[in-house]
């Protein structure tokens, strides 16, 4: 989903430098380029509109805070998405919205599509928050199982099993829905 190939890294580094000096115009340009992707990720990881807004705001404030340390030869978006993901995970853990393994792939009937994430989460909306987060980070954002295990404080096998079982469950749901239409 990242479209970093077309990013002019040198130009982006100039924008970061100007934003560091207090340029609202440069900061607004960075925001307009990346806020959509950051917010979309936050929605997918939190499943909550208000929390996603908070995570997005927090991410751009972290950008201000750490502008001095951002490598000028690398695209900014992966850094922003990593910050947003970490912020979302921190919130999950603070809210203790973690699940035991056996509960992980149990479908939450109350959280069906039409919740805060709506169609942007699809079938994932039906799973507990931590499961959604792990699966999205693994499948779409390309996090390794090692990274997921470290960030969530579990083993790699926990991450592998969670993803595998959730994807199997999702396939079953799709088949059921297809049969229903047929």
């Amino acid at each position: 989903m990242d479209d970093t190939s077309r990013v002019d890294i040198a130009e982006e580094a100039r924008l970061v430098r100007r934003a560091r000096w207090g340029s609202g115009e440069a900061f607004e340009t960075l925001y307009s380029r990346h806020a959509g992707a950051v917010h979309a990720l936050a929605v997918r990881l939190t499943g909550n509109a208000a929390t996603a807004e908070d995570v997005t705001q927090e991410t751009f404030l972290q950008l201000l805070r750490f502008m001095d340390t951002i490598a000028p030869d690398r695209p900014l978006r992966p850094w922003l998405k990593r910050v947003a993901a970490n912020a979302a995970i921190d919130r999950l853990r603070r809210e203790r919205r973690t699940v035991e393994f056996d509960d992980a792939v149990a479908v939450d009937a109350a959280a069906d599509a039409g919740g805060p994430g709506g169609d942007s989460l699809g079938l994932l909306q039906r799973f507990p928050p931590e499961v959604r987060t792990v699966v999205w980070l693994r499948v779409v954002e390309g996090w390794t199982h090692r990274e997921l295990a470290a960030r969530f404080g579990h083993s790699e096998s926990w991450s592998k099993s969670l993803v595998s079982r959730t994807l199997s469950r999702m396939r079953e749901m799709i088949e059921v829905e297809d049969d229903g239409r047929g």
Partner: protein
Amino acid sequence: MDEVEKQAKRYLESLDEPALPGGLWERVEGARRHRMRRRLGGVAMASVAALALAFAIPGGLGDRQDGPLLAESTPGAAVEAAAGGDADRIRSVHAIDRALQAAYDRNAADDEIEPLWRARQALMAAATPAASQSKG
């Protein structure tokens, strides 16, 4: 990534992109300006203390009798005027900080704020070698 994950990736990437909330930029921009004002306050305190230590001014920062007062709206002139003396340099930093604070408070344009920061940086950079010479 195995085939099951690839299929899931295609499915998840085909979902609707959530729309960016309209009022979010105002929230983020408000927080940025608040942060810039706070940062300015912190930087001002730290740099004045650093300059005072570096030049070890007799009478400390309270002595404002000598040297010209600076025009806050002309950062270039501030740097030039401060080139001669350490006390002047400290007053210049004070003046620029006040100008920056005022600029942030009235949501001044970037082309007004950025030269102030550059002038401030020039003053601080000029102070560093002088300080090391005075210690040597």
